[in-house]
């Protein structure tokens, strides 16, 4: 027998038919059951069968069996549920059938297609709470689809009164807990259980059968996710959900608060008024994801404890979007005291974990906002004075590098000085970490803080969330001084760490120099800061080829940046004449460095007696006039071939080309370019870049480039000498 | 009644020590103890202390022969095990009666007990009870003097004392003003003296107190002699309490510029304090009534003529050791002033430092020492 026939049979039956022996009825029934278990019933069938079952025409067992077999194939039409409820209103079906109908609605709740009209039934359903037998099911159902506007004071009162009379029942507590979610100020009930204990699923079997059938057909479980569903999921899955008011232990264990709704009394009144106007405010508790936030952007309200922003990403988005200064003030007060407490009292070892997670979340928030939070800055800077450099060191250093820009004397006192002390008293790895912190700090200043500093105040489109009364100071001064400071300590560090772990430290220093040299190009800083020339020279004479390589690239980059700067000046983009003078001076410095490098590496004339400021200055009177050989050897000692960094490669080169191992440097001179190629093949391209940028072959015409650098005529000689040898 | 008292006493003990005490008490002989312990263990896995104690008390009561005196002896055994829990006051018996010949030696506890009971009958009612024991060579006594009107066990009316035989030192706990005079009268007569005097020496550790009190009577130049003789003599059972030598870490890389100074400091301290561990005192109190002495701040106050009165109290686990350690570590200037080093010889806890009156000895309880306040 076909399902349609069976359904029609039942629908058309107008009078009570006897059950026993009625083969037609039984076969129809069995057909329906069979189909339901295999494929599920279509929505129309379900709607009609609901009518049949609830009408009470058939015998009760028949109705029961029908209801039990109402397994949806795809979805259930909303009207089916509505019909159920309306039949219940008529009080026509017996009480058992009514309960069964309610249970059915609960079981297939997820599969109802739309629920808009169902929400309208809230009042009706609430009315049924008077009937004791149905109460658990009604409570469960109401729990599933209560929205904020359904929470009314009279309903709360009724429930509380009932609870007082009847004693606490799990289902009542469950429903009250939802109410409490929305309006904690209205409901003051104890809530120590979880969702599962409120409504023990008495119909587990039923719902599992439904799930099986659906899986068999291969239908996705739910249609659309409204936020009530989201709420359910949240409540259901978070097994360690705690009550609104945390216990003392929890407060100690995890200082970051959980999201709660606002606890103010006035919010209820305001919301009822708003509701009549058609507005709706959603407590942040219900926002699960970014999409949810977008959907309800106009209606969301902040949670009761703003510290919860450290836990919830959507709230971070919301905070940065609305730029609400009150929320920012709340957050800053809270974070400053929390950090004070955490960092000052973190002497016990079991606190370490929680302080680490607190610092981590703070850092994540700061990274998200891409700005430093002033309160956090203050607390970290205070902590630096008593910090031992080891505890929480990665996080503290990261938070420092995220800090805001301050006038240089302040920055020096609060950050640079303590870090300097730590720098000189730590191992080479500690030193590297601190240099990396400075690199990140400078990068942050160049990228984020510089624009912030430059923007005018009182503009509405300010770049930062946490507004701060700004003192008028010049950001460029800070940047220059930072570079100077870091170069100084790097230099000292290099000297100290000559023997241990040098390479790593030099790499970190070079990272810093890379950043400094490229600041104009990458971050549009309208000036170029020249690193300390002593530092560069010291790096030149290091024993590590990587260092020498990178130092050359640094110089090339400087040239690029100077070029760009000059071009911008000529185009009239930068109006500051002071910068121009400064730039010229710096270019001269750069030039002398370039000359030094060239001389030592390429021209084999490391030591000069002319330039007093160079590292390679040798007073003429000191020189041994007779020993020309020795002098030549000295001069050659930093050349491309004899430089200690390149020596291994030179030897290999000699070996490869089968030269005599005791070959003279003079004979190798013509092979300079070839050697450069060899090095290039080993990925040491810096030298080639340097040579190609600064050393010109005789054949090329030389005009604008050298003028910009103010190269003395000797430079042209540089190229000419080398090329003549080559040919 | 005895049942209650027994319970009361045993409950204050630690659970593990109950059986130890019972063994020492020897009221229940070995077999009975065994059966008792079996019975107790058979009951439940973890027996609560109160139920254990009730069990024991029942057993004792069933045995019979449980008098107040015997119970008092149990109390004394308990006390002997935890003597540091109570605060002891040292008294001195004065003016020995009779000849000092051995005839009149009252060292037998039984004899002393009878004498004491006789005396106490005069002053106290019949309910009072005396228990005396000789433990470790010392006479331990317990006097229980209940107030007549009240019922039940009154543990606050117990007076415990420890007497060092053949010496005038007696240490009390629980001495009350109400019966102080009567008790002293009883005891002095029973032990053969005329008077009892409070020495103002209190503490938790009675051997130290005794040592301080006993050595007082051989003070001055004899103290060093005392140390050598008593601590090194071949008949002496007391194990030497020599101090641990301070260790100098010899490290070539560290040059200690102050080494000579430190050594000198340690030498001075050793001379003053001796090479043995100091007796344990928990509290040393001073009442200072001297004029203001500071030289840097407001020195003109010292010329005011008025006294700057203050009270100073040093607290700790072993205050005398503490003084020495303070000086070793540099918190105190060496040499330490007399009033800190003379505590051992003075055998007192409470001192009064006052300005000299009539150019006499400057400390009030000078006796033989010539200390001068600078």
């Amino acid at each position, binding site marked *: 027998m076909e399902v349609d026939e069976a359904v029609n049979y039942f629908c058309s039956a107008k009078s009570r038919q006897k059950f026993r022996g009625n083969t037609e009825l039984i076969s129809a029934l069995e057909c329906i059951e069979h189909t339901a278990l295999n494929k599920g019933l279509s929505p129309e069938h379900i709607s009609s069968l609901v009518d049949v079952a609830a009408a009470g025409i058939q015998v009760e067992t028949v109705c029961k069996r029908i209801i039990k077999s109402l397994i949806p194939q795809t979805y259930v039409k909303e009207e089916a549920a509505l019909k159920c409820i309306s039949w219940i209103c008529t009080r026509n079906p017996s009480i058992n059938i009514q309960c069964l109908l309610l249970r059915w609605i609960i079981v297939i709740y997820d599969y109802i297609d739309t629920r808009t009209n169902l929400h309208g039934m809230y009042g009706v359903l609430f009315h049924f709470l008077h009937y004791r037998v149905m109460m658990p099911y009604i409570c469960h159902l109401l729990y599933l689809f209560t929205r904020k506007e359904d929470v009314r004071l009279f309903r709360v009162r009724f429930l509380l009164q009932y609870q007082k009379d009847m004693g606490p029942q799990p289902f009542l507590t469950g429903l009250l807990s939802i109410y409490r979610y929305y309006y904690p100020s209205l409901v*003051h009930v*104890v809530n*120590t259980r979880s969702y599962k204990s409120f409504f023990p699923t008495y119909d587990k079997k039923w719902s599992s059968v439904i799930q099986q059938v659906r899986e068999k057909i291969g239908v996705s479980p739910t249609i659309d996710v409204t936020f009530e569903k989201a709420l359910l999921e949240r409540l259901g899955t978070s097994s360690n959900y705690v009550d609104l*008011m945390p*216990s*003392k232990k929890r*407060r100690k264990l995890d200082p970051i*608060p959980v999201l709660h709704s606002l606890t103010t*009394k006035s919010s209820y009144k305001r919301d009822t008024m708003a509701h009549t106007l058609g507005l709706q405010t959603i407590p942040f508790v219900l926002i699960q994801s970014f999409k949810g936030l977008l959907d309800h952007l106009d209606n969301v309200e902040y949670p*009761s*404890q*703003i510290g919860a922003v450290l836990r919830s990403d959507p709230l971070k988005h919301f905070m940065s979007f609305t730029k609400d200064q009150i929320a920012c*003030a*709340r957050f*800053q*007060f*809270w974070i*400053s*005291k929390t950090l*004070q*407490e955490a960092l000052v009292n973190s002497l016990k070892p079991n606190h370490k974990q929680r302080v680490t997670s607190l610092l981590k979340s703070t850092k994540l928030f700061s990274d998200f906002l891409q700005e430093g939070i*002033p*309160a956090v800055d*203050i*607390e970290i800077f*205070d902590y630096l004075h008593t910090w031992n450099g080891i505890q929480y060191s990665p996080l503290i250093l990261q938070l420092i590098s995220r800090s805001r820009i301050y006038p240089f004397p*302040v920055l020096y006192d609060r950050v640079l000085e303590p870090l300097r002390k730590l720098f000189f008293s730590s191992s080479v790895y500690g030193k590297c970490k601190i240099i990396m912190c400075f690199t990140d700090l400078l990068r942050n200043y160049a990228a984020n803080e510089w624009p912030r500093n430059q923007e005018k105040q009182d503009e509405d489109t300010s770049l930062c969330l946490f507004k*701060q*009364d700004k*003192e008028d100071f010049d950001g460029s001064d800070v940047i220059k001084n930072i570079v100077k400071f870091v170069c100084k300590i790097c230099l000292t560090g290099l000297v100290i760490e000559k023997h241990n772990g040098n390479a790593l430290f030099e790499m970190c220093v070079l990272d810093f120099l890379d950043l400094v040299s490229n600041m104009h190009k990458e971050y549009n800083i309208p000036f170029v800061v020249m690193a300390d020339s002593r530092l560069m020279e010291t790096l030149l004479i290091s024993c590590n080829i990587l260092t020498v390589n990178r130092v050359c690239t640094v110089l090339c980059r400087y040239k690029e940046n100077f070029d760009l700067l000059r071009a911008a000046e000529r185009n009239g983009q930068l109006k500051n004449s002071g910068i121009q003078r400064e730039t010229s001076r710096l270019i001269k410095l750069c030039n002398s460095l370039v000359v030094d490098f060239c001389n030592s590496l390429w021209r084999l004339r490391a030591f000069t007696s002319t330039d007093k400021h160079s590292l390679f200055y040798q007073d003429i009177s000191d020189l041994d006039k007779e020993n020309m050989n020795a002098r030549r050897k000295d001069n050659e000692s930093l050349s491309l071939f004899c430089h200690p960094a390149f020596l291994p490669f030179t030897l290999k080169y000699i070996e490869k080309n089968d030269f005599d191992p005791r070959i003279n440097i003079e004979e190798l001179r013509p092979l300079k370019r070839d050697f450069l190629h060899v090095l290039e093949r080993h990925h040491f391209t810096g030298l080639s870049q340097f040579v190609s940028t600064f050393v010109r072959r005789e054949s090329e015409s030389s005009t604008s480039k050298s003028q910009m650098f103010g190269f003395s005529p000797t430079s042209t000689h540089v190229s000419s000498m080398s090329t003549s040898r080559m040919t | 009644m005895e049942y209650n008292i027994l319970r009361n006493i045993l409950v204050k003990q630690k659970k593990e020590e109950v059986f130890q005490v019972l063994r020492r008490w020897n009221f229940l002989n070995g077999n009975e103890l065994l059966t008792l312990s079996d019975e107790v263990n058979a009951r439940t896995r973890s027996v609560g202390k109160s139920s254990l104690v009730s069990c024991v008390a029942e057993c004792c009561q069933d045995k019979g022969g449980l008098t107040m005196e015997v119970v008092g002896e149990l109390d004394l055994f308990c006390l002997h095990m935890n003597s540091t829990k109570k605060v002891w006051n040292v008294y001195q018996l004065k003016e020995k009666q009779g000849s000092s010949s051995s005839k009149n030696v009252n060292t037998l506890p039984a004899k002393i007990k009878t004498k004491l009971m006789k005396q106490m009958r005069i002053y106290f009612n019949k309910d009072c009870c005396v228990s005396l024991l000789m433990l470790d060579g010392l006479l331990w006594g317990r006097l229980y003097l209940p107030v007549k009107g009240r019922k039940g066990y009154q543990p606050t009316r117990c007076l415990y004392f420890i007497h060092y035989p053949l010496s005038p030192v007696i240490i009390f706990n629980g001495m009350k003003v109400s019966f102080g005079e009567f008790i002293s009268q009883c005891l002095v007569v029973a032990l053969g003296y005329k008077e009892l005097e409070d020495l103002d020496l209190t503490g938790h550790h009675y051997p130290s107190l005794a040592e301080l009190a006993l050595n007082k009577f051989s003070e001055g130049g004899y103290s060093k002699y005392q140390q050598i003789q008593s601590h090194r003599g071949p008949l002496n059972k007391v194990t030497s309490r020599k101090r641990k030598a301070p260790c100098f870490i010899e490290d070539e890389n560290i040059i200690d510029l102050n080494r000579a100074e430190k050594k000198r400091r340690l030498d001075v301290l050793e001379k003053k304090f001796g090479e043995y561990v100091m007796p344990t005192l928990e509290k040393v109190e001073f009442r*200072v009534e*001297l004029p*203001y002495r500071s030289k840097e*701040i*407001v020195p003109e*106050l010292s010329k005011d003529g008025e006294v*700057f*009165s*203050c*009270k*100073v109290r*040093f*607290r*700790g*686990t*072993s*205050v005398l*050791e*503490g*003084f020495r350690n*303070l000086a070793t*570590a540099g*918190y*105190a*200037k*060496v*040499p330490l002033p007399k*009033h*800190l080093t003379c505590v051992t010889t003075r055998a007192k806890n409470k001192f009064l*430092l006052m300005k000299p009156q009539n150019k006499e000895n400057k400390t009030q309880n000078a006796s033989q020492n010539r200390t001068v306040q600078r």
Partner: protein
Amino acid sequence: MTDRTVRTPANVTYPDRSHGSALRTFAMGTPFRTPDRRRFGPLGSSWRTPGRSEVLKRIDNQRIRTSTPRSRYTSKTAEEVLTEHTEVEQHNIKELVGKVWHVFNLTPLYNFKENKSDLQHYSRTLSSHIAAECKRGVFVDTSEPGDATVALFSGLDVAADDHKAVLIEIRGKARNKNEDKVISQAVLFSTDLEYNPLKAEIKEEFTYFACMLIRGPESVSQTLQNWIEVQFDCKVVKQTFTSHELAFMAAMFTGFSEVHKPLELVYKVPKEIEGLSHIDYSTNASDCVRLWNKIRGTDSEIFTTEEANKFITGLESHFFEIYSIKLNAMQLLTIGTSIAFVGQDGRLKVHAKSPENVLKVCRHLTDVSVDRLTVC
């Protein structure tokens, strides 16, 4: 009555705070922060202190508005205003005396309303929170707490910026008894604030109480702190006093010239000294006052660290001369004066006999708390 409109500091030099002190000397944090000088004179004298003008200068630079009291008190002298304590206020001030309090610091409270219905609402919420905690079994050992009341508490607010103090009382009954008595109290106050640390744009939403005193069992105290934190989005932190601050307080309180209790300083002997744990040094109060009078000649209204140091050093050197023990190398654990007993862990017991002095203690606590608040 002097005209107070002109405030330029003519010939007074101010200590340069930018060197050596780990204080915020730039535009963030509390703008006026000199823990080496504290107010000492009569209450309500904050607008008479010479340090104030510097505050105003800096404040003007940063556009932080404070309510200047000039407009309020032009007709009367400050002293006249302050001595008018009503009966209720006197009673309230006396409430603080004689009980052991724990001191806490608070950040500003958000959304604290003080009209009657709101206060009742807070009472109800707190009561239900306590009931919830009861059910959870937190108060097993102590007495069962029952109802709570939140009410305003007058008498502690002196200056214009002070908010009326708040008293929270929790009643309950002991386990075996039946009467309902007050088992825990909390007072939130800020007395004689020199300026309002909140910025103008957020002042309406926040209420600042500098200090909170709680007495009662520890578990009830924790519950109360939890509730305040969640209800008003603030952070409650235990206030601890350093040795230095305790010494300062000892010296300052001696200056209030009450002599019914001796000045007791309890020093903690460092751990490496075995055997000795504490040194209690108590001096007769009148002798202390004598010393104090000699040190502090002037009648100024600021009490500085130098004076406090002098005082304490005087006592310690007197001790040194007698005992040769250097007390200045040890930490102060608790101090007890005729005015108050203060411990390092934030315990406080006020003994002062006159209400003025009680308020001065409150003012000092307010000062200490305000210094620890970060304002951005």
